[in-house]
């Protein structure tokens, strides 16, 4: 049984149908990626799985349990956490406060101290900036904070929406190493990315979205080798 199973999801966004019968699954322990051009429905898919958008029809199963009707905060309690596009850190709160909000749900409160240590170990930079207002961090640091904040909820499934957007190439490499590192600790990852080369290298499973439909699925290396698919859908 897959960790996350999405079955024929139809989602309308601002009165326009953004997703058409989208089905996919994420196996436990893997890195799964959704790729595709702009406005192909990647972020909509992520937000729907996180519970920020409600589907018109279809179902979302997490660990075999239907979560379709749950609110976003209830899904965090179940172990699904989204690191939203554009980081969305809380600029007026300190770095530490941002992280504390990450472990707000009841399940995580007790282990907050350990989670904090773990996140600081992963991102020593954040520990240095502990008491600084998060809005004063650099773009790369803010992305680290957003991911760290997500990890504070001890997610079973961590969803990353465009984590590398707007970051310097050196930082992007660091970020992908970190994602692999987090995954190796047992956190399943579902990500949306623009950086296809790197994403296809690290993802075990890749779904290609086009205008709200899944058109191709395969293993990362497969897609990386197949020139036709790369040309047709990924513009590589």
């Amino acid at each position, binding site marked *: 049984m897959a960790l996350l199973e999405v079955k024929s999801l139809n989602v309308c966004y601002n009165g326009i149908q953004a997703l058409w019968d989208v089905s996919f699954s994420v196996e436990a322990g893997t890195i799964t990626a959704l790729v595709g051009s702009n406005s192909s429905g990647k972020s909509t898919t992520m937000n729907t799985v996180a519970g920020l958008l409600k589907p018109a029809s279809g179902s979302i199963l997490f660990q075999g349990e239907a979560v379709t009707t749950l609110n976003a*905060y209830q899904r*965090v309690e179940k172990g699904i*956490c989204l690191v*939203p596009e554009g980081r969305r850190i*809380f600029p007026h709160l300190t770095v530490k*406060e941002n992280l504390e*909000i990450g472990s707000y749900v009841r399940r995580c409160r007790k282990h907050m101290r350990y989670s904090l240590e773990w996140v600081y170990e992963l991102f020593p930079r954040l520990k240095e900036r502990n*008491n600084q207002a998060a809005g004063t961090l650099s773009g790369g640091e803010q992305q680290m904070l957003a991911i760290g904040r997500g990890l504070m909820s001890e997610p079973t499934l961590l969803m990353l929406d465009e984590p590398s957007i707007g970051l310097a190439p050196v930082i992007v490499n660091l970020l992908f190493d970190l994602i692999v590192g987090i995954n190796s600790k047992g956190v399943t990852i579902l990500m949306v990315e623009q950086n296809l080369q790197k994403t296809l290298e690290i993802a075990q499973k890749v779904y290609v979205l086009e205008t709200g439909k899944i058109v191709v699925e395969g293993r990362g290396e497969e897609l990386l080798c197949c020139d036709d698919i790369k040309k047709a859908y990924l513009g590589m």
Partner: protein
Amino acid sequence: MHMQAYVKPVAIALIMLSLLLVPQFATTYTTSVILNILMWIGLVTSWLILAGFTGYISLGHGAFLGIGAYFVASYWQILPFPILILLSGLICVFVAAVVGYPVLRVKGPYFVILTLGLSEFVKYSLVYYEVNIRGTVGRILLRTPSLENLYYWVLVICLLSIATAYLIKRSRFGLALMSIKDDEDAAEALGVNAALAKWKAFAISAFFPGMIGAVMAMRWTYIDPYTVFNPMMSFQVTITAFLGGIAYVHGPIIGATMLTLLSQSLWARYPNFYMIALGVILIFIVMFLPQGLAGLLSKINVPGFIKDVFKNVSSPERRKEL
């Protein structure tokens, strides 16, 4: 080092002591001015429990004051005063809980307008009730408690509201509220039940104006819907909060003191000028003092011991310490 550690508690203790002694030693006039200041501090501090932490600006805070005042007027001399005060607060909590559930789903300017509309709705419903059903215009309250008695009640409520705001600020709940202010959707995505948190904050913030209204009705001795539900009360709460600085727990103390003293010195002689001054102050804050007077105070060089007193309650410094 050790000396400095004592400055804060000693200063606070001295202020407390002098506040306690006011009715014994000060003139009736001074006592009533300080009572007014305390009333505004309580109103503004409780308003900030929703507005300051979550950024949801309510223009309905004055309505709770009116509800408290009307409740106490209806049951005066039937129930004992302390119970009336407590019940007034609880009724406002209940009203806020019922009204807040749907209203807090509305965001931004719509929320502001909705709260104003709701408080006007309550006012005109009461006017209708008074005129058409009871056949009266207002209520006259007889055998009200002494000024001294009322002073202590307002002092207690005011301190309670400050303590509540301070405890919330330092709690996990306060952190959730502040995250809502920065980015409500992101907070929700991280597991914060934003609707519930705002609802709780709104209900808590309604408790204090309800009690203050109950006490102040005794001070006013005559109440009618137009006076106690005057939207100007809600506006002044907002203006005072911004004047003091909404990010600071001690903002209301500075704002309320300044504005009450200003109104005392102007109101009697130049009532129209007072309203103009209020308008000018509002424009001035928005343009030049977005952090309010408390924000200004934290930037300029004030003598160390004054800073120490305020450090205890001011927000950014406090957070850096933790």
